[in-house]
């Protein structure tokens, strides 16, 4: 292992352990009665497991199918980058928290909209990070550079969205599951686009950025489209139909998938 890979491991292990075990024990330490009665309809333990499984599935699928040959052929390197994925998911937990989602929202208040944001926020972070693992490169440092661009762009777009449309307020106070699903799907769609925008063989930082923008513009375009759509959907009351929000969310992801597939395999 190169020094930078050892250093990365030294940071990634505690970040992953603190993030995942901290959130697990945070959920488990809440009294059973409080979890059952306060978290009606939002089983936090299952949410944690589902999120952990989704993160593992995204990373393993990427590493076994799309990563460079030396990672695909080595169980040790696969495990190494899988661990980095869990560490990046822990960073996603921090970003979700910055949007205002706390343990109390998911476990004690039983806010199902907040649970959706927790799941989509973390999984989207890992999808954006997974793109940084696609293709050949000289080492883990290029994964860092690509992840910084893709994950950073994802969360900048998320915070812009929430500032313009008060998305966090709608999810945490209105407990609007429709908006939570639509916004979660938007994050996932943006992550697919941004992940694809940083995917491919590494030929230099300037070239990476030159390849990034011609693809990544679709992500802010999706955000703008969602803000426009949201203006029309927002007028309904919180207990109205959430079918329109669901349809919009699925549409975001479908557009992103179609766009990424149309680009073909990254070079």
């Amino acid at each position, binding site marked *: 292992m190169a020094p930078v890979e050892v250093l990365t491991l030294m940071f990634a292990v505690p970040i992953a352990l603190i993030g995942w075990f901290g959130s697990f024990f*945070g959920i488990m*330490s*809440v*009294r059973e*009665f*409080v*979890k059952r*009665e*306060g978290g*009606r309809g939002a089983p936090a333990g299952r949410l944690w497991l589902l999120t952990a499984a989704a993160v593992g599935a995204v990373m393993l699928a990427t590493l076994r199918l799309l990563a460079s040959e030396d990672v695909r052929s080595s169980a040790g390197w696969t495990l190494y980058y899988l661990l980095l994925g869990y560490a990046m998911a822990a960073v996603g937990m921090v970003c979700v928290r910055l949007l205002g989602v706390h343990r*109390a*929202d998911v*476990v*004690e*208040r*039983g*806010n199902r909209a907040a649970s959706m944001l927790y799941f989509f926020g973390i999984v989207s972070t890992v999808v954006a990070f997974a793109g940084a693992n696609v293709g050949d490169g000289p080492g883990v440092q290029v994964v860092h550079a690509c992840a910084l661009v893709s994950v950073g762009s994802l969360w900048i777009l998320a915070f812009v969205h929430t500032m313009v449309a008060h998305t966090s*307020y709608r999810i*945490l*106070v*209105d*407990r609007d599951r429709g908006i939570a699903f639509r916004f979660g799907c938007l994050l996932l769609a943006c992550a697919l686009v941004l992940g694809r925008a940083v995917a491919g063989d590494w030929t230099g930082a300037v070239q990476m950025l030159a390849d990034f923008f011609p693809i990544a513009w679709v992500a802010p375009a999706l955000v703008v489209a969602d803000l426009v759509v949201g203006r029309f959907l927002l007028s309904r*009351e*919180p*207990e109205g139909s959430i079918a329109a929000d669901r349809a919009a969310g699925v549409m975001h992801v479908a557009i992103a998938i179609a766009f990424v597939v149309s680009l073909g395999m990254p070079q």
Partner: protein
Amino acid sequence: MTTPRLQDAFPAWAPEESRWSAWAKPVMFSYPLPAQRAPLPAWDDTSLQAVQPFGGEAVVVDLPGVESLACGLALARRGFRPIPLFNTTMGEGQELIDIDPILAGLFEGAGVLGGLRLHAEAPPVFLLDAQRLKGTAAPTMFDNRWMVFPQDLPSARMLRAAEIRSVTLVRRGSSMEPDLRGVLRLWRREGLEMRALDVTTGAAQPLAIELSAMLFFLEHIRRLLTGLRKNSSGGFGGTVPVPQATGGGYA
């Protein structure tokens, strides 16, 4: 004979059929009933004449612990659904807020509510403890002060969806903690009418909320950073640690 459990009282306060039950705080119901249980104080119903159920009105009661419960039950007799928002715990050391009387009151109140058969669509009356932020914690004490967040109450959109157009704050005098001020400010910003009812006079008048968003935010952050302790088992409460007797460095 089986010992009554406070947990069994929770369904009376948060029945499945009421949309407001999702906001009832279960944490205090997870504690055992105190051995000594004083009855709730009697409540003079005439002080609440200005509050009418099914008039598109919700109520927030901000009175000291057991008084808040007694007032809530008096409003329940008039057709409101009381929702307890007490979000504190008990633990080792002298508690800053004595919650035993509230636990006993919650148990007694469940019996009262069980006999009322409230309407499923009954408008809510949210019960707070006006003492929730009072007092100063010293080392070894159990600091169980707590605060209310906008997430702990329904949003104005949710209230409007239930045909609620105005909110009455029931309190004594004119004091109001900044946390509640923040919630009411958001409600008013989203179009709900506000008024305050002083239980000492029975007079209701429009409620003025003078606090800028920045001041509210700073006060909120100050409370979070300097005082209150989240409890790992849910709600607020934690023992204040004893400061180190000696400083670091060389002896």
